[in-house]
């Protein structure tokens, strides 16, 4: 009754995108941190290639050869407003979306996001060799974590909160599939396992990009073999940065939204999210690797897109003729 169960589509849209942008900012910060760290070590991979690889991990187009110089790259990935996935763009996008729905989110959430925005906007552009860059990236990572904690503890876990969850996990599923696929394209798994320090460092680097190294070591060993890394990042049911964990949450948040909002045409969105979940739930790493990792991941990306489209069709951007509710 009342307005408790009523949420404007525009508001849902803003909450969803606020959350996606923040997840994206955090992902970019983490990948940059790990890859810049690898750049410091003497590795067979030349710096030039490292920048190219970093862009691939983030799903960005190949940078121009002339631009592959560290201060330009850092500037572009972190602070370039004309570049949609830069950290500054993402934080700004998140704040703009939050501003539109200030009366829907808690004051604590708004203040935290605002603080983070001002910190990024006012930051001096650090050099890649500079320790302040590390501090900057840490600020982002921690800032997003803090925001999530504040969200969970100050906002009603209702429809709006579920849209925030959905945004986060769809974005996360996307970025994980990109990371895993770009990594194995660059460093394919051989038939007899990995050898050599350089490759070892790359596998550890991938796990670190997903904050998964320590958790991985507990489950397997400190010598990450390619099948194990792939299995952990794709199929682990309880690690928060695995694809499977993300799809579980996509499906459950979407179901919760359907239950709370009582939308009529929810079946298709629920079906697509359920199928995405099942695809990962019932997969086996041996089968995935033998039939091809790349096609499997491509299929997941496609399915994520379908869920996103169905979400809009059902709750946000539906044709009016089909939607006279009361």
């Amino acid at each position, binding site marked *: 009754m009342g307005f408790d169960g*009523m949420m404007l*589509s525009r508001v849902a849209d803003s909450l969803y995108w606020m959350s996606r942008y923040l997840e994206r900012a955090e992902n970019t910060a983490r990948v940059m941190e790990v890859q810049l760290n690898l750049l410091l070590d003497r590795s067979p991979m030349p710096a030039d290639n490292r920048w190219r690889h970093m862009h691939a991990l983030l799903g960005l187009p190949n940078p121009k050869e002339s631009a592959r110089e560290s201060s330009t790259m850092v500037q572009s990935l972190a602070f370039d407003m004309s570049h949609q996935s830069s950290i500054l763009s993402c934080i700004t996008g998140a704040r703009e979306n939050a*501003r539109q729905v200030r009366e829907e989110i808690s004051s604590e959430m708004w203040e935290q996001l605002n603080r983070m925005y001002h910190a990024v906007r006012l930051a001096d552009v650090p050099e890649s060799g500079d320790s302040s860059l590390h501090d900057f990236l840490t600020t982002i990572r921690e800032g997003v974590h803090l925001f999530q904690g504040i969200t969970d503890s100050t906002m009603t876990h209702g429809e709006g909160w579920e849209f925030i969850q959905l945004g986060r996990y769809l974005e996360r599923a996307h970025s994980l599939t990109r990371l895993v696929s770009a990594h194995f394209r660059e460093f394919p798994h051989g038939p007899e396992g990995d050898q050599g320090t350089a490759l070892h460092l790359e596998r550890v680097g991938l796990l670190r990009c997903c904050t998964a190294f320590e958790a991985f070591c507990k489950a397997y060993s400190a010598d990450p073999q390619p099948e194990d890394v792939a299995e952990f990042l794709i199929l682990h049911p309880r690690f928060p940065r695995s694809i499977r964990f993300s799809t579980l949450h996509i499906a459950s948040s979407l179901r919760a939204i359907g239950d709370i909002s009582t*939308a009529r045409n929810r079946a298709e969105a629920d079906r697509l999210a359920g199928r995405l979940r099942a695809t990962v739930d019932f997969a086996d790493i041996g089968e995935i690797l033998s039939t091809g990792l790349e096609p499997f991941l491509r299929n997941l990306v496609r399915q994520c897109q379908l869920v996103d489209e169905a979400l809009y069709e059902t709750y946000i951007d*539906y044709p009016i003729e089909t939607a006279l509710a009361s």
Partner: protein
Amino acid sequence: MTVSLQRDWPSALFERYELDDAFDEMFEGRAEVRPQYAPLYKSLLELGHEEMQRRKQALDLSFLHQGITFTVYGEQTGTERIFPNDMLPRILTRGEWETIERGLIQRITALNLFLEDVYHDGRILKDRVVPASMVYSCRHYRRQMGGVSVRRNCYVSVAGTDLVRLPNGRFVVLEDNLRVPSGVSYMLVSRQVMKRLFPALYQKCGVQPIDHYGKALLTTLQSLAPEGREDPVVVLLTPGVYNSAYFEHAYLARQMGTPLVEGRDLVVHDGIVYMRTTAGLRRVDVIYRRIDDDFIDPLAFRSDSTLGAAGLFQAFRDGNVTLANSLGTGVADDKAIYAYVPAMIRYYLGEDAILDNVETFLLSDPAQRAHVLDHLERYVVKAVGESGGYGMLVGPHSTAEQREEFRLRILDDPRNYIAQPTLRLSRAPCFLDGRIESRHVDLRPYVLFGDKATVVPGGLTRVALTRGSLVVNSSQGGGSKDTWVLTE
């Protein structure tokens, strides 16, 4: 009880305090503290300078954290400023307030009757009480509203009437704001902060509460829902986050527990207004709109507007949705029509106006125009359709050049201007730069009108923070202060 002042001010706090023939809200004559101000005066002397500073900082910080800012136009795009708030309350006695309240209700009743009349039979025009030419030439007259019936004949459901106090102590009406008056959130927020800063003083004075404004507004809006709509859905329509009053829109929506919608959230289908929710389209019954007439519906008014919703006007005409305020209300707060309000009150209600008007010269009248043009330095000249202190000449503070410019403007379009004598607005104590000084103030109470009239006791006291200035608008360097109406 009265407190006597010595010949010299008892404290350095008051050393810059100015007293002259303007009515002073706190002091009577040159020596006496008005009884309603005695507790405040006493605690000012006790608190001392440092404690006052500390509380002033706490007040400013509280406004900053809550994001109570407004946007200044004309400077850089979207300059946000904290709304300046003075921490000394303006205090009105119960008796003063009762007169104001009765006067405001009488006035809004007559203005609503006038609007109904103007958009239907036009009796008051035929009887030549108000010249028809004056009405039809008004910029805010809306031809489209002719013959449209409005729920409960309530055109204006939220008004913010500006009152000023003259040297003789009487309140008079300076202007009626009948379109989308703003500022009420500042009144509500500053009360919250004041109760935290001066709890003992507040309690000692015995102040009538205003916190029920949100509830009263919601009840008023619900009472205007189309007939037969039980449990009506009320929404607040905002132009969006870039509007200068967005804080207020979000604040009021929260106070009422109603959705805050933008034009793009609304869909009109078969003459019914819906909002787009995640559960599908939900019918909307009452729209408290905070956008101007012109932007309501691109099909009926400005076709380039993206702030309203296409088809909204037709839905409103058909009586399927209520707009509050109704459209076309600006014809009644036109500054030239204003001159006729006392006559309207007599015409419709058979009563004398409880609150007087300010003497007003209509510059479309040749004799009045000639007189004013000869003495421009004495008058305040205002463009009739403007608000917010724009388009105005304050004669005594103007240069010869500015007067010449206005003379040409007036001759070019006399109907567009009125003149009023420069008023000595009353002054109230303000805490500025560590001292207490007197500044000119006005008073904007908010009147709600639905199935009944409600005026929450008090209003927004606006302050001209610049010494000597008479302009209280926030866009022109004004601030505000809390207004306390006492219970006894």
